[in-house]
């Protein structure tokens, strides 16, 4: 699988010594309990010309972050860095002592971490953290530092740049925080910026804005950048060069365009394929409606006349047929997970009904019979937290067998083995604890536990979000196969429209707790959509280096709206095509045709609602 490469890159700068960053023969090793050393990164060589961006791409465990951190002379868990050459500008990083490195970090080499929410200190103001590099390196006084920070905030298109720094990290949105971290990195005018998956944790619509801001800011500062990511499409937008990594080794490197168009290694091709999910054929849906959700209102707090104090979902309804898949899409906070919880009965709906094969289910889980509970199974988003770390895989899978089917002893043992086969996990893993499994394996166990109940309805809540693309694609294949084989009706919740589009028979778009559009897969392409759906579609980066540049900056809202009445269109404050006097005064009508339903004033007229 691994392709041996000739050390000097074929493409890239002709004169490596002119490069801003040069890495040759980099290896990073950790000590094993038995005293030997194991290489987690081996024989890495690349160079980045001044002012350009190089991407390190690979899945988790590929060593991409480890390599990036090594550029700052930093290693986690006491790993040892060794290299023939590890140079940034005129600095020989490998030869520098700790105090010299400290003087360089944050001043000449800056780092932007994956999760700004975790990397910002929650108990200090943003400004104090943003200007800290200037202060600790003695590069500016407090007043000057503050002025520089405000200027950077402004150039990063942050709202109220004068005062945003006085807030605490939890008081700003994820996208803003990520940009604030960019400000923290760029404030000292570093020669090299390392960006470690800076947009992975963001919603697609936010990601676009943040990417654009990053790209502009880096270009403006003239810094060289190393961009770490698992997402080829994103990388395509920002980097001139790509290094593909697998298991700590280089698989391929070259110009971005070349890697995308003419990948040389098998692994790169796999990555590319996973990034462009193939559209799967629609299932031969049976006619019987297994799950019907009818006009659900749900939320938290005391319920008054069918409306909760803090409403989350309003008037959501759909049906799912046996063997078919409904995709539910929306950004974080849209109510996707709440919908799953309402169907499972974990959160009783305030009003509306959930029907299983036409039979209304009690709203609260506690009132449902064990049989009713068995027939609807919820697969939680995060397998790390959904699997009890104290139990073995066998314990986890055997429990629903015992609980719903009374299966014990040898019979249960055999059935667990069958289920492991079904989800393609080696039986040998049965006696491991879930903490010893990889992310993909955990998600399979999570799935197997739901399947053990032999459900009619499977609710999958973001089951691939935390996984690498390739691993996630395999899980998707598995779910797709199972629902066909077992005839399970699936509700597939995701924030990723390309996955949903490829995988589901019908798509439901949630915005702020309302279903703004429902659309069968067959009718998805070439039809008009709700403006929000359109925004989602447009925010998914193409594998095209020019996509970010060519995609017009998202049009601002057409109407200046401060607060909207609950019955009005909730997308109004962001809608670029809102119609004054209509959208801001009348509730949006529901247009139904061709199996599609759109909640929008524009949808009634001819043409695309979003254009």
């Amino acid at each position, binding site marked *: 699988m691994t392709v041996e490469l000739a050390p000097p890159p074929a493409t890239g700068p002709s004169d490596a010594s002119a490069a801003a960053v040069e890495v040759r023969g980099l290896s990073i090793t950790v000590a094993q*309990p038995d005293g030997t050393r194991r290489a987690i990164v081996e024989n890495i060589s690349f160079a980045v010309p001044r002012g350009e961006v190089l991407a390190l791409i690979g899945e988790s465990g590929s060593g991409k972050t480890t390599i990036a951190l090594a550029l700052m002379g930093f290693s986690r868990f006491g790993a040892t860095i060794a290299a023939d050459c590890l140079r940034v500008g005129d600095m020989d990083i490998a030869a520098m002592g700790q105090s010299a490195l400290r003087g360089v970090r944050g001043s000449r080499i800056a780092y932007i971490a994956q999760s700004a929410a975790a990397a910002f200190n929650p108990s200090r103001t943003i400004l104090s953290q943003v200007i800290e590099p200037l202060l600790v390196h003695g590069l500016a006084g407090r007043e000057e530092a503050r002025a520089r920070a405000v200027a950077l905030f402004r150039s990063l298109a942050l709202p109220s740049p004068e005062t945003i720094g006085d807030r605490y990290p939890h008081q700003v949105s994820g996208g803003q925080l990520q940009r604030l971290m960019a400000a923290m990195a760029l404030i000292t005018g570093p020669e090299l910026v390392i960006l470690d998956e800076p947009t992975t944790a963001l919603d697609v619509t936010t990601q676009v804005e943040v990417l654009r801001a990053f790209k502009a800011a880096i270009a403006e500062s003239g810094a060289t950048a190393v961009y770490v990511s698992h997402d080829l499409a994103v990388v395509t937008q920002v980097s001139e060069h790509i290094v593909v990594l697998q298991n700590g080794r280089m698989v391929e490197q070259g110009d971005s365009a070349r890697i995308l168009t003419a990948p040389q290694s098998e692994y790169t091709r796999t990555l590319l394929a996973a990034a462009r999910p193939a559209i799967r054929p629609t299932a031969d849906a049976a006619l019987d409606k297994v799950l019907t959700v009818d006009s659900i209102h749900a939320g938290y707090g005391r319920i008054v006349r069918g409306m909760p104090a803090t409403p989350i979902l309003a008037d959501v309804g759909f049906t799912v047929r046996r063997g078919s898949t409904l995709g539910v899409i929306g950004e974080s906070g849209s109510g996707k997970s709440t919908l799953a919880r309402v169907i*499972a*009965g*974990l959160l009783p709906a305030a009003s509306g009904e959930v029907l299983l094969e036409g039979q209304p289910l009690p709203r609260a*889980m506690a009132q*449902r019979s*064990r049989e009713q*509970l068995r027939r609807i199974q*919820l697969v*939680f*988003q*995060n397998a790390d*937290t*959904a*699997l*009890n*770390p*104290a*139990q073995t895989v066998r314990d986890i899978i055997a*429990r*629903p067998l015992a*609980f*719903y089917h009374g299966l014990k002893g040898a019979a249960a043992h055999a059935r667990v083995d069958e289920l492991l086969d079904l989800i393609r996990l080696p039986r040998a893993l049965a006696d491991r604890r879930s903490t010893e499994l990889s992310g993909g394996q955990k998600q399979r166990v999570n799935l197997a*536990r739901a399947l053990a*109940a032999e459900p009619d309805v499977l609710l999958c809540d973001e089951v691939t979000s935390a996984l690498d693309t390739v691993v996630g694609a395999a899980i998707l294949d598995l779910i797709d196969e199972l629902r066909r084989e077992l005839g399970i009706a699936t509700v597939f919740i995701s924030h990723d429209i390309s996955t949903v589009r490829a995988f589901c028979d019908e798509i439901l778009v949630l915005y702020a707790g309302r279903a703004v559009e429902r659309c069968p897969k067959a009718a998805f392409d070439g039809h008009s959509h709700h403006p929000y759906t359109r925004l989602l579609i447009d925010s998914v980066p193409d594998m095209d280096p020019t996509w970010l540049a060519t995609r017009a900056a998202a049009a601002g809202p057409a109407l200046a709206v401060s607060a909207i009445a609950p019955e009005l269109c909730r997308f109004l404050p962001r809608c670029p095509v809102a119609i004054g006097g209509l959208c801001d005064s009348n509730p949006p009508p529901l247009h139904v045709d061709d199996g599609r339903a759109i909640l929008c004033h524009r949808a009634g007229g001819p043409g695309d609602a979003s254009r």
Partner: protein
Amino acid sequence: MSGALAMRVRNMRLSGRIGLALVLFWLVLAVGGPALAPHPVGAFIDQEVFSGPGRTFWLGSDYLGRDVLSRVLWGSRYTVFLALGAALLAVLGGTSLALFSAIRGGWTDEILARAMDTLNSMPSKIFALVLVAAFGSSLTLLLLIAAFIYIPGNYRIARALAINLVAMDFVQVARARGEGAFHIARYEVLPNMIHPLLADTGLRFVFVVLLLSGLSFLGLGVQPPYADLGSLVRENISGLPMAAPAIIVPALAIASLTVGANLLIDALKPGGKA
């Protein structure tokens, strides 16, 4: 099971192995020690008091001329079993209540938390004094009283742990499956609290040892002629100026026992490093 245990021991850090050795040593002594005692525990056999180590009395004699070795051998039994029993009981009681509290939530939780605060706010030694005076100090009662006094402390810790765990997804999964409160408490939540609870047990163990010695300070505790290790230290305190083995030995015994127990528990923590 025993193979896995052996594995764990082999993978343990040195401090963990030292802890294990100390704990095993005291456990063995607690079980078999009294049989090895060369003299009756209450026999007044030395004409001298606080004599040093010698041929007849390996560890010298105490303030009444009794054999220190024999008394320490018996004392270790009382300390180990009383303290271990009370610590385990306290953790069992506190954790059960905490699980109940965390899983039930609402008013049950509020009332239990209040009640536990009430008990926790009373100085332990004085509370023990009242309870011993009211109910007596037979071994069983001492065990129960010591356990009762340390239940609220454990409850506090266990409740904090349980509340975090109850919010975890895998508990939601179990709830969604329709599991009852007992299953959730016993199989989903409890196994994930074991290590912090073990650490707490170790701490409570130390507390009970100290409480017993504190009670002996007030003239209560294990019935004579027997005495727990703490009481041995206390009753021979006048031997301190002459560094009599009668006080040094039980003091060292307590220290090695409690330090050993805690080293072992530290080493059992997953990850081991922290």
